[in-house]
C-alpha cells in the first residue's frame, strides 16, 4: 500500500481514471491502528482492481483540509478522480468489503 504525500496526491488520485482508496490516518489515532490492518488485508484481496493508498493527516494537512476530513479514520473512495464514497470511523472488515466490492 502506497503512503501518499501532498505532492503526489493529484497525480496518484485526482488524475487517476480508475477506482482508488485513500485511508486518512494519524499515528496518535487508536481506531486508525485497528482499521489499518483490515485495509491492508483488503488491499491484498482487491489490490489488482482498486488502487489502495494511505495519507497521514498530520504531515499533509492541506489535503485533509481540502477534502474536509473532520474525524479519523476516514476512508475515501475515488472514482475517476472524484469522491464516490466517504466512510467515517472504524468499519468491520465484512462491511468494508461489501462496500468496496461495489466498485470492483
Amino acid at each position, binding site marked *: 500500500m502506497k503512503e501518499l504525500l501532498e505532492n503526489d496526491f493529484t497525480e496518484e488520485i485526482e488524475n487517476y481514471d480508475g477506482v482508488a482508496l485513500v485511508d486518512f490516518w*494519524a499515528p*496518535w*489515532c*487508536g*481506531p486508525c491502528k*485497528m*482499521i489499518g*490492518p*483490515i485495509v491492508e*488485508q483488503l488491499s491484498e484481496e482487491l489490490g489488482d482492481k482498486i488502487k489502495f493508498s494511505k495519507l497521514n*493527516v*498530520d504531515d499533509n494537512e492541506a489535503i*485533509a483540509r481540502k477534502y*474536509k*476530513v*473532520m*474525524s*479519523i479514520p*476516514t476512508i475515501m473512495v475515488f472514482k475517476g478522480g472524484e469522491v464516490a464514497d466517504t466512510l*467515517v*470511523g*472504524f*468499519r*468491520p*472488515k*465484512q*462491511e468494508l468489503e461489501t462496500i468496496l466490492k461495489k466498485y470492483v
Partner: protein
Amino acid sequence: MEDRFDIAIIGSGPAGLSAAINAKIRNKKIIVFGSRDLSNKLLKAPKINNYLGFYDISGVELKEKFKQHIDHLGIEITYERINNVYAMGDYFALMVNDKMYEATALVLATGMESSKLLKGEEEFLGKGVGYCATCDAPLYKGKVVTIIGYNREAEEEANYVNELAGKLYYIPMYRKDMKLDQNIEIVNDIPVEVVGEDHVQSLKTKKGELTTDAIFVLKDSISPAQLVPGLAIENEHIKVDRNMSTNLKGCFAAGDCVGRPYQYIKAAGEGLIAGQSAVAYVDSQKNK
C-alpha cells in the same frame, strides 16, 4: 496483552450475568465487564413481583441473590469501562483507553441509556460532532471547540484539548467543582441543537448560540452503535434474531439494549440465549 478470551460480556445486569453463568457452566473462558453494584436500575427498584420464583423481593435483595450466584460459580466482574469494540473479522478487540482485550465472541448487555441525543447530533457525527475529544483534537488545532461534559473525566479531556484548540467552551451537565484550565470558558447553559451545513457551525443553547468548529459530547456510556462501529440498530435498539445474533459475526446482544419490554426476567432469558449462542459460535470456530 492477555490471552484471548472465548467470550467477552459487556454489562453486569441480569442479561449479562445470565449469559455469563451459561457460558461458564459450559467451560468457556469468559470476561465480564461491569460495575460493583451490578446494575443501577436494580438498586433503585423498591419491590419486584414479576420475577418468577422471587415474589415480593426488593431490587437490592435480588441483586444480592445474583451476586451469590456468580460468586458460587467463581465468576468475577472486571470493573473497567470499554470505550470501543472493533470487529476484526475472526475476533473482537475491546479497548479500555490504551489497554486492549481480545475475545472470539462478544455478548452486549449494556442496558438502555435514557438521556436523549441532541437535535442534529447524529446528522453531524463525524462532521464536527465526536465522542472522543482526545482522538480528534489534533484536527482542530487553533479552532473553536465545545465540550459538553457529563462527568468529571470530561474535564481531563477538556484540559488536553485546550492545549491544541484556539478556544474552548466547556458546558458542564452536572453540578460539581470543576478542575479546568483557566482560559477554558465555562458555559452554564443547556445545549439544544447542533447547527451547520456540510459541517458543524454552531451550537444552539437555551439562552443563546455558540459559534464552534467542533462539538464533543462526553457521556458515561455511549450508544451501542458508537461502542461497536458497524453494529446494526433498529428503532434505537440493537437488531437481533431469535438466537440473539446481531449483524456482526460472533456478536450477540441481550436485555434492554435489544428492545422492549424492559424487564428483568426477559433480560435474563435473552442473556441465556445469547450466552448459549456465543458458546456454539466459539465451538464452531475451534472446530474449523
